[in-house]
């Protein structure tokens, strides 16, 4: 029941504020409370090379690049220091199996921290 209900509640709350796409593995805290899934290329690790001189998106010239926004906010918002430090961490590929599930449940169960077995081989 909770598994069905929570995604609805989460989406209802996060959609209006962050345009949440329900990837199920929320990283908002490390991206200046800016959702990387709203990047047209769904990049999780920072801006592409096409950001325009005015800071707007290569794909949607009328929209500010979400990674420019994320950077500005990470620098300027009074966020916890560790959140700011996470800005440049290497985020793993999105787990498509989590699409549409509640990131809150996945956080509590640590399901959102599961990565493919090879991902962390060696050092980053």
């Amino acid at each position, binding site marked *: 029941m909770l598994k069905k209900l929570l995604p609805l509640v989460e989406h209802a709350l996060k959609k209006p504020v962050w345009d949440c796409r329900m990837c199920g593995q929320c990283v908002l805290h490390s991206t200046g409370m800016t959702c990387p899934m709203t990047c047209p290329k*769904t990049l*999780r690790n920072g801006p592409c090379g096409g950001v325009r001189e005015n800071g707007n998106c*290569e794909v949607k010239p009328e929209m500010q690049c979400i990674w420019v926004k994320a950077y500005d906010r990470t620098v300027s918002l009074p966020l916890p220091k560790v959140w700011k430090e996470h800005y440049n961490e*290497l985020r793993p*590929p999105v787990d498509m199996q989590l699409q549409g599930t509640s990131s809150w449940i996945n956080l509590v169960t640590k399901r959102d921290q599961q990565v493919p077995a090879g991902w962390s081989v060696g050092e980053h």
Partner: protein
Amino acid sequence: MSILREKLENTSERVFTAEFPSIDGGGMDSVIKNAARLAPWFDAVNATDNPAAHAHTSNTTTAIAMKMHDLEPIMQIVCRDKNRIAIQADMIGASLHGITNLSLLTGDDVTAGDEPEARRVFDVDSAQAINMARIMATGTYLSGRKINPAPDFYIGAVENAAAPPFDYRIQRALKKHRAGAQFLQLQICYHPDRLEAFCKGVAEVAPDLKLIPTIVLMKGAKGLAFMNDKVPGIDVPADVLARASGASDPAQEVYNLTLELAQHALSLPGVRGLHVTDFRHDETLDLFMNDLGRTPKRQG
């Protein structure tokens, strides 16, 4: 070991790379013609992956064809058209043919091409793709499945030194380095001050990351204006545009400007060579390389 890797890792020699022209029709003859033109000047040349979101002969097939004709490829893989399975298949497939230089990049959006209605993939991003190449070079796929023996990749990436958020670009380059990139081909940059700040910043923290800025040979002032207006991420300062268009011989002025940019780039910390994109396809390339003090390699 690839020539590129050998030169960058074991010598202090400068390295010159280029972009292989896109191949459509024309068969192997067009590969042979282009390979013969580029081979005297370049150590390795990029086999592109549907550049600007236009379909052409694929990255792997182009790279194999180049190798068959004695031109060392750097195989590009962009994240736009393939998911993580296909990208790993590209990489291991390249290694089957002895192609080990890779360059992993995000890629232009589908809307930059002639099929804007296509589905975007972007299943992984460039930093993740770089990490996948690094993982594979240690002997496993992303899933953890073993590859024995491990492919011997020399991993490259691309960065724009001069696009917003300016303060972050150095960090992003370092992230790619941490993920596994050993060399970075930098996008063309018409702001020498920004390029300088970027290279200094990277070299300070990661002196072993090899930087290869891009230089574009173009026909004249119109080309510069086009880049400024039409290529997202590339800004040409107004004084540069004015200098080019106001000159009595704009084509010569653009050439002078390009040479100045090249010499400046080569003087920067961390910079090990240049990546040359040739939009002229004439004798300017030979002139340019001569002016940089290069002598052509003898063929045969």
